[in-house]
């Protein structure tokens, strides 16, 4: 369908699993050519949303248009329009890299005449030409990920979904993949929707991000606007008595918001530089021991904290281990 309209538009998109509402009346518009980030803690509904947009899961109510096609009524057309790189590996590790790509190209009906050229193109893009004929189980984690991204591009999707594209990868590989994604968006004008819990990833790549929690959008804007919207600096204080200090502070200094996690007090305020001496003085007078004070200009992580009320790292920590364990199990076999 045409480029007029949105790459993705959802209409009260809702998914319930039994009594639990995973996604609640989601309304979202994503422009063609945009890199859009879905951020949220584990269980916020990111992957469920993507699964519905990819037609793997049917919505309980509401619907969405992807590339102009209805995900409920025209799943076949939707599938032709999209590419997806899943969070967990989805490659046949008994086949070679090239065979995996050939398989994918045939599955998507890429004509024989152009198949070989496109495979060569995407292999070059992810710099795996020299390993194309090796069996997948000889690939490292980063190489597999790159091959999966290459595979997602093989049929020229209008919309590419990347579910945690750099989860568990080393910093160099991550940097590398970011470059690919940026280049892709620039050169091929592909709409990219990614989920991530790496804030720097969202900050670096995304034109706009939506922070979702409990299946709802908490806020949606460009990373810069989101950071500016916090209207203030964050001061992080490690103290022996956060409760006492919070009570004292709230009477004497301007506090826009305060939050405490494991003895680490986060205070959102204005002009942080001038507030710090006051805090130290108040703490001294109150008899609360201050171990450290850090001033932070707002980052996307703070935005996240502000809107979801929890640190994304803490929320994701255990979740992080599950896919790694799965990969390990696979290796052993």
């Amino acid at each position: 369908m045409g480029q007029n309209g949105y790459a993705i538009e959802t209409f009260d998109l809702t998914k319930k699993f039994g009594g639990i509402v995973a996604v609640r009346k989601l309304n979202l518009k994503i422009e063609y050519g945009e890199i859009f980030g879905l951020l949220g803690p584990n269980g916020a509904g990111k992957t469920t949303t993507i699964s519905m947009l990819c037609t793997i899961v049917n919505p309980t109510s509401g619907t969405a248009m992807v590339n102009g096609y209805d995900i409920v009524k025209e799943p076949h057309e939707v599938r032709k329009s999209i590419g997806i790189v899943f969070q967990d590996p989805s490659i046949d590790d008994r086949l070679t890299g090239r065979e995996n790509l050939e398989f994918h190209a045939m599955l998507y009906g890429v004509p024989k005449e152009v198949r070989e050229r496109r495979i060569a193109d995407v292999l070059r893009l992810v710099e795996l030409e020299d390993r194309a004929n090796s069996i997948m189980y000889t690939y490292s984690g980063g190489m597999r990920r790159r091959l999966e991204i290459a595979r997602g591009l093989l049929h020229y999707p209008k919309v590419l979904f990347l579910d945690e594209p750099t989860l568990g990868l080393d910093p160099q590989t991550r940097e590398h993949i970011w470059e690919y994604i940026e280049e892709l968006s620039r050169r091929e004008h592909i709409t990219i929707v990614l989920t991530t819990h790496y804030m720097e990833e969202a900050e670096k790549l995304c034109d706009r991000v939506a922070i979702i929690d409990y299946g709802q959008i908490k806020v949606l804007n460009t990373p810069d606007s989101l950071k500016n919207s916090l209207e203030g600096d964050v001061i992080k204080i490690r103290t022996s008595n956060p409760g006492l200090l919070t009570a004292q502070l709230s009477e004497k200094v301007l506090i826009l918001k305060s939050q405490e996690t494991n003895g680490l007090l986060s205070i959102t305020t204005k002009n942080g530089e001038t507030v710090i001496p006051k805090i130290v003085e108040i703490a001294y007078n109150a008899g609360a021991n201050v171990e450290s004070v850090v001033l932070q200009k707002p980052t996307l992580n703070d935005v996240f904290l502000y809107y979801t009320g929890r640190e994304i790292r803490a929320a994701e920590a255990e979740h992080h281990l599950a896919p790694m364990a799965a990969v390990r199990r696979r290796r052993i076999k």
Partner: protein
Amino acid sequence: MSELLGIYSIWLREVKRYIRERSRLVSSLITPLLWLVIFGVGLGSGLGRFGTTTSFYGYRYQIFIFPGIIGQTLLFTAIWLGISLIWDREFGFLKEILVAPISRTSIILGKAMGGATSAFLQGLLLLPFSFVVGVELTPISFLVCLPIMFLIALGLVTIGLSLAARIESLEGFNLIMSFVIMPMFFLSGALFPIDTLPQWLRIFTYLDPLTYGVDALRFILLVNAYIFPLYVDFSVLIGFTVSIILIAAREFNIKK
């Protein structure tokens, strides 16, 4: 057209995976050979010692079970290949297929044809041993064997696929061995004639689709040792295969 290409790609992947594992191809030959050489000779000569007849429809026991052992190889290989769908799910590969623009029915057809081809090749490797055992294999009987073997394999793979669509975890494997594969093997008449069985047991053998496969193979390879005419075997096999494919496709089309 693109559906056909999709089915072909899934078929190709299955066959490539199977052929690539040479060690499995060879080691899967060992079990049937043990049955033929040790069990076949052992039971055959044991029967003679007690004065019972050693002739099964006019053949030595070892020759009598040869078509049955081919059936057994098809059974074990095909059902496991069907169940391999669980592995595809476990290792994430199934998702890659499920988001592709191809119908669920085509996916099942591709998997079924691919698994059937692999199991068929495994069965084919056994045919040369007919000369060792003493079965007279003519060019004609060889050629007629092929479609029958493929048909048997196709139905059996699809049994595995429809089971895999329902089984959530790898733990169900032992259950399938005990409740599906072994009963199907023993009831098929691979190891003994079924027309002299007590009636209560004979009814169960008639319910086993493999019975008709083994009977057809015996008809072709041994000429005299059959129960049903070939067209009956063939019709039952076709009817069964079509129904189980429909069942598996329906099972697979249910979206959560």
